[in-house]
């Protein structure tokens, strides 16, 4: 991959777990931490770190509340995140021979 092409890749998404999170949320819509963890197959600590990175990058929003006195965190893709994921997919598709 050339330097130019490498710079086009969105580093925030270009990690296995973060990519899986973005794909899962695109498909599922808003989802809880537990559900993302189950779908992505990551540990609590690892997933928290990746979710925070996506949140800090403005790709995710999180709504925290309580259900039956238990903490619930619902994550959702922001419009920026949706657009970034779409761009990332387009970039990958462009890499394939037509």
């Amino acid at each position, binding site marked *: *991959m050339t330097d130019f*092409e490498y710079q086009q890749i969105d580093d925030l998404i270009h990690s*296995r777990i973060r*990519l*899986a999170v973005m*794909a*899962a949320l*695109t*498909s*599922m*819509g808003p*989802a*809880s*931490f*537990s*559900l993302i963890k*189950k*779908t*992505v197959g990551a540990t*609590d600590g690892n997933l928290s770190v990746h979710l925070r990175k996506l949140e800090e990058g403005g790709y995710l929003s999180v709504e925290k509340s309580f*259900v*039956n006195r*238990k*903490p*619930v*965190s619902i994550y959702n893709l922001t419009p920026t995140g949706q657009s970034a994921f779409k761009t990332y*997919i387009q970039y*990958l*598709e462009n*890499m*394939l*021979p037509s």
Partner: protein
Amino acid sequence: MSNQENSQAKEQLAFIKSIMQDSQKVVADNGYGFILWGILILIAAVCSYILDQSQLNQYQGWLYLLIVGLGWLYMVVIHRRTKKYSIGNPLTKTIIDSIWTAVLISMTLLGFLGGATGAIDLNHMTAVMYTVLGTAYFLQGVITGKTWVRNLAFGWWGGSVMLFLITGPLALALMIVMMVGLQIVPGIIFNRQWKAALTED
């Protein structure tokens, strides 16, 4: 573009596709609707039997109007409020919600109009209702990829066959067993799965 880059892109796209496909069937309902309708129908069945035994059949219509009205009140008021906590693919959720709404409307029409006009024999009303109910379970099971939910439909349909053939206390007992085993218990399972999917350990 090198072959290695092509295969990396392909592999990434395949990974994204698999995650999205797996996530598509994820739906977790809080199960409250299943439990509530199950309990309401149980109450209706028992009250209906008591009214029948007491020769007070003229109140049967009012009884079911009250029970079904309470069920619909739940659907319209409470179910809508708790919707934000339902989990899963928006399209899948819409399809399942639509199936249940359509089935509940059909059952309400069959129950009230079918019963009032005499088009459906009241002794076999439950059999007709359970046949329709089985359809909803079957579709929900297939759409969400949950075989056990799909298989509940066979329980509903099998029970319906029996309910077409028998009447009286035996039919009432079967109806109660089916309502508990195929509606309330699955509702409790849905609720547990929903809580597990929603809350953090």
